[in-house]
């Protein structure tokens, strides 16, 4: 795996470059044909299985099927992040990973918070639940 492609830097840039070229800039890593093909094969498998589960009505229990499909989706997202987006703990001095972890935390809070709050709101505000105006005071 070529960690750093020298042809992105001109000769003068190379000469003046920071002692540690990974400190600035070109700390990304592009992967190789092999890693791209591994990522592609994994994502084909991780896409085909959930489609087969749903289109073939393989699992009768819908809760289990839903959880399985979500697990395949999460696994495939990780495959894409590693093999196609080349995420690792070292690129850009670790800041891409930091930004991604922060984003994932915000996403988890936003998604779980919204679903949790709105589920309770829906349960308590069902049309059948007509409230007595006297109770609202």
């Amino acid at each position: 795996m070529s960690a750093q492609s020298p042809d992105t830097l001109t000769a003068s840039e190379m000469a003046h470059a920071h002692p540690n070229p990974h400190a600035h800039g070109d700390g990304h890593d592009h992967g190789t044909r092999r890693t791209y093909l591994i990522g592609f094969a994994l994502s084909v498998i991780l896409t085909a299985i959930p489609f087969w589960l749903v289109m073939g009505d393989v699992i009768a229990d819908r809760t289990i099927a839903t959880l399985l499909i979500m697990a395949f989706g999460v696994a495939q997202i990780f495959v894409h992040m590693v093999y196609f987006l080349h995420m690792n703990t070292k690129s850009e001095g670790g800041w891409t990973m930091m930004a991604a972890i922060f984003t994932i935390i915000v996403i988890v809070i936003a998604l779980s918070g919204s679903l949790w709050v709105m589920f309770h709101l829906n349960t308590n505000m069902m049309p059948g639940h007509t409230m007595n105006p006297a109770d609202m005071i």
Partner: protein
Amino acid sequence: MSSPANTTTADAPEFYEIVAHDHPAHASTQIGFWIYLMSDCLIFASLFAIYGVLGGSFAAGPSPEHLFNLPLVAVSTTALLLSSITYGFAMLDMDEGKQKSTLIWLSITGLLGAVFLGLTLYEFYHMIQEGAVPQRSAFLSAFFVLVGTHALHVTFGILWLITLVAQISMKGLIPANKIRVQCLSMFWHFLDVIWIGVFTVVYLMGMLR
């Protein structure tokens, strides 16, 4: 070099960083673009949250089983997945300085993106013909906003791809073009990641609901 402890104001040496901090051109472009992608991720997170909350509110209108055509979704997913690997091949050829095959792979990627976009638009057209318009129910509003935002991103990705193909054809694989190809690569793979969420949550889980 004097130790920092014994400096008086008069003879305090002043240090200027002249050579030690040479930033190569475009050094911060990639991390900046990554931060943009993360913020874009948050837009999609809120749209997914909206869909999660409203996805079951059909208002006695059509539900996913009546509307979604899974074989069609499977074909568009395949197109997008293939476009990810063809973009990867374009990146590898670009690193080896092969301009012609980079352009060919980028064009194939663009065509696969166009196939995906065409299928999404066909699906939208078909749904609107059946009366499943965004204003029909909260489920359909959330669906059109989420899938529509993704399709809009793919549209801009294709426009960017066409621009890049033109730029590389005219100016070659210069460093500026390389960094653009790398940024579009992140954007393109990011859209594929979002699509994994869409087909899992909207289409597959919608059919199981």
